[in-house]
């Protein structure tokens, strides 16, 4: 069974920050530009307090939403219905 293509993502390694992840997933890009790209693809992490802080279990997308998928939803933690 071939899996359909979905939006690419990584999870953080211990002690990785935005800079380290940018270097890992976008090594050809200048670091600051790569960080900006990553942040723009991961608005769910920027909506946090403090903004941009991620934890070890978080999903970080490494590309924008795929065309035709309805786009990214910059959701907030704890919306009604939250478990």
């Amino acid at each position, binding site marked *: 069974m071939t899996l359909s293509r979905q939006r690419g993502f990584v999870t953080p390694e211990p002690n990785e920050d935005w800079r380290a992840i940018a270097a890992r997933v976008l090594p050809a890009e200048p670091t600051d530009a790569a960080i900006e790209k990553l942040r723009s693809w991961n608005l769910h992490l920027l909506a946090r307090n403090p903004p941009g802080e991620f934890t070890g279990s978080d*999903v970080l997308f490494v590309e924008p939403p795929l065309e035709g998928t*309805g786009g990214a939803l910059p959701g907030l933690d704890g919306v009604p219905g939250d478990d």
Partner: protein
Amino acid sequence: MLDILIRNGRIVDGTGIPAYHGDLGIEGGRLRQVGGHLNVDARHMVDAGGHVVAPGFIDPHTHFDAQLLWDGQARPALEHGVTTVVHGNCSLSLAPLKAAHRPRLVRMFQQIEEMPDAAFDGAFEWTWEAFDAYVDALRGRLSLNVAPLAGHSPLRMWVMGEEAQGRAATPDETRAMQQLLRECLEAGAIGLSTSYVDFDENMRPVPSRYAHAEELDALCSVLGDFGRMLQVVPEFYSTDITIARIDQLAELSLAHGIPTTFSPLFDSVTMPANVSRVLDRVAEQFARGARVWPQVQTRPIDISFSFEVASLFFVTQPMWYMILRLPREQRLAAFRDAATRKSLIDAVEAGGSSPWGELRVRDSADASLIGRTLGDIAEERGGSPAAVMIDLSVEEDFGVHFLSASMGHDDPSRVGPTLANDLVHVGASDAGAHIQSFATYGDTGYLFDRFVRDGRYLSLEHAVRKITSETAQIWGIPDRGLLKPGAAADVVVFDPETIGRGAELPVTDMPENGMRYVRDASGIDAVIVNGEVAWSAADGYTEATSGNVVLP
């Protein structure tokens, strides 16, 4: 002589085969005969009168962890036909838990599951730290069966202390968590729960969210030794992230041979492709051999609230939420203060429009207000819906209750086919949680009422199978979910023409008269747990304590 003989039943045995008429005999807590005409004596006779006789319902997503310690009947779940509950979901369980960590975990329960202080403070005696001792504390007081999960957050706290909420585990700490989980599973835990979305009372992510992929993989390797379940709460507000979680779960399932489940999965007008995209991915992963079960609830998302508690309804309105968490007198003073009142209204209604105009008054000392929208009342009184909400609450000393109805998952033509999908696990009731925001009871009755009787999206037999044998099979709960000779005698007798859920009611039956919302059952005749009548429409709750901890 039989213990119980149920005569004249329409037997729906949980397999999904067509119903058939017959009797059912119970002896020694087991089903002795299913079907046919039994001409034998019994200590207790039940005349089903042609009503359905089915396996007891299994609820896979509850938070009865604390309630079971003072209410072994898990009221009112039992009277809705639920005979087995899984608790300890969403990374939170009351064991394993060191005494020093109790206040911290209780605050998380209060924050995440909206359980009042009284639910923990003096309502029961903490007699355990280890999982086996918690299981012992439950035994002997249960009127229904329980299948407890071990929570990832307390597991981390046990091993890492305060640092559980701040960093990755070291290899030694990961090994210690593996050993601790192994002890939980040996003591009867049905699996491990974790969460990717929950936060504590200080808005810090719960401990499980600090676990890196290696830690969860190591814990799943222990689950693999036992073939037990991993339950997670994904970021359900984003389809892309939910799909990423499905892919992670699939890899864990394949690598360790374990079942996994995630909850909740909602239908919503703001994410119209959510369910279809998620189910497409689930189907692809099942085709690879992975087991990733999405849990879907039956009921629409309704939230009821008053200003007595900081309801989930306000969680996206930080200023309101902060004030509602103040002590009562300070809270009242804040809402009475003109400047604060204006700031609160502006926070919601900036730009002149109000998102709260369609909210309704569901309970008030002024009967003429009940059922009316805040927009309607605002027109009559002047002001805006948010202003009306504040003013009514202050005027009635917080006694007025509001209802935000149908916030999503409320289109039967979309939810019905989803519930009928073979890859969908009907569950996610959240029973025992959010008790001051909505009644989490009666989802099973609602399934039959709305999706079998009204919409005909599922047959009676299919619906019964969904919440009995399928649930037992998914979770590896042995011996339950089917009516067959030798199986545990968990049985519900109900009228398929009237089974449903009652109106949502505020009651004060929590410890120290704490308030919660409940729903009564309708159409249920009798509920039998391990061969003893635990509830009947004629006599209500009995003194039976025949429930037990289900050992996988």
